[in-house]
């Protein structure tokens, strides 16, 4: 089976990960998956404002995901959409299990993610970037969170689809996991798929996360060396 850009079904798009790209932030990272580019910056743990939102026994994690207006084929209107608000929510829940939030009670950890180019897979790129940015900020974590999406083109389960494949895929199944303990922190699916395919897609996606996980760690290592 041949994919539009010549990749094998289980082959990811070319990946570039770089930590420490936003000097003002406590931690930051850029993740490029094909043409999709996400930049994540972490501020905190810092004082929670407004104060009534403080959580007594742990840090609050706040995530903002935004498409930059010129990142998409048709200009994206600035400001949150319903889609982006849902993505903020699932990204937050994807990251939360990995962070020792209980170590910073009453504070807030802010993760801001700007998608500066969107070519499918923006939420997975966002999670990969956010996870590296959190580690770069020195926030104690159980594991990095790694994310990739599976699809199905023809009879094949394929990984990390790009925009040219979006019209022909039978499903979009993004997943995020903490690989060390094989724990899944994000799982969504849109499509029309038999149960066995869903299970296969999940397993394939998790397996492919290993490659990304390695690149995440390399990016952090490179950053430490420079520091």
């Amino acid at each position, binding site marked *: 089976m041949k994919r539009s850009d010549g990749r094998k079904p289980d082959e990811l798009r070319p990946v570039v990960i770089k930590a420490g790209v936003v000097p003002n932030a406590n931690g930051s990272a850029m993740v490029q998956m094909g043409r999709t580019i996400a930049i994540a910056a972490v501020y905190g743990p810092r004082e929670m404002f407004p104060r009534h939102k403080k959580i007594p026994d742990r840090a609050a994690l706040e995530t903002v995901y935004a498409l930059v207006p010129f990142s998409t084929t048709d200009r994206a209107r600035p400001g949150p959409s*319903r*889609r982006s*608000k*849902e993505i*903020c*929510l*699932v990204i*937050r*829940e994807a990251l*939360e*299990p990995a962070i020792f939030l209980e170590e910073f009670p009453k504070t807030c950890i802010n993760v801001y993610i700007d998608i500066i180019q969107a070519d499918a897979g923006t939420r997975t790129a966002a999670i990969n970037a956010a996870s590296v940015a959190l580690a770069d900020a020195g926030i104690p974590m159980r594991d990095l969170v790694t994310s990739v999406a599976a699809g199905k083109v023809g009879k094949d389960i394929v990984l990390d689809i790009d925009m040219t494949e979006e019209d022909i895929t039978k499903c979009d*199944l993004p997943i995020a*996991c*903490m690989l060390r303990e*094989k*724990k*899944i*922190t*994000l*799982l*969504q*699916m*849109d*499509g*029309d*798929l*038999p*149960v066995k395919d*869903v*299970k296969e897609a*999940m*397993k394939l996606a*998790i397996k492919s996360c290993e490659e990304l996980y390695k690149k995440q760690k390399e990016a952090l290592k490179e950053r430490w060396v420079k520091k």
Partner: protein
Amino acid sequence: MMLQNQYILNLASKGLRIDKRKQDEFRKTEVEKNPIDKAEGSARVRMGKTDVLVGVKMEVGEPFPDKQDEGTLIVNAEFSPLASPKFETGPPREDAIELARVVDRGIRESGAIDTKKLCIKKGEKVWMVFIDIQILNHDGNLMDAAALAAITALLGTKIPEYDGKMVNHEKRTKKLHVLFKPVPVTTVKIAGNMFVDPCLDEENIMGARLTVTTKDDGNMCSLQKGGSEPLVMEEIEKALDLAVEKGKELRKLVG
């Protein structure tokens, strides 16, 4: 509160529930068809004390530029402050948006509605199908109740007459063509065990949630994990299997 939470957790660790249900048992679920005759279609679903009303309205509008020959589906959820002491007036909350989007995807991805049949004049006029979810009382598992009410309302929807200028909502002639009945089943993980159809007390202490929408043919059309704890593969597979099995039962209520 804290004591009750602890009690529910203890029960859950043994696979038991506060209202004596089995792990794979739904609360008593009643589906009322077309209670609101001003709507093109409507349904009210009571799942235990959870009470959700869904109405369908059809208006004529312009198609999206990239879908010139297709009608549009718009799913919207209002968490009226009437339904819970925790809901507030204001713009939709994050959870209301998630609810609307999960219901939307269940209907859209299953292909339940053939949006091409909603085209009136290519590139100019199409039917816009508004599916509005109104919560009347929140006692947990809004996802399943809302999605069930939504597909029931669609199944009872009649298209109003349109003379090219005005929609006559008082005269409805043709039934909306609905091809599939997508039905969601939500399973939560509490204290290491999996339970379907959580009530609010269970939702408040759950670790993770998985909502799985299946079609008549058993295919899955939507997954949505929620909650801030992770799941392992076996738990997910359990939830998938429960969704197929319990989905069949719920589908019978839709009619």
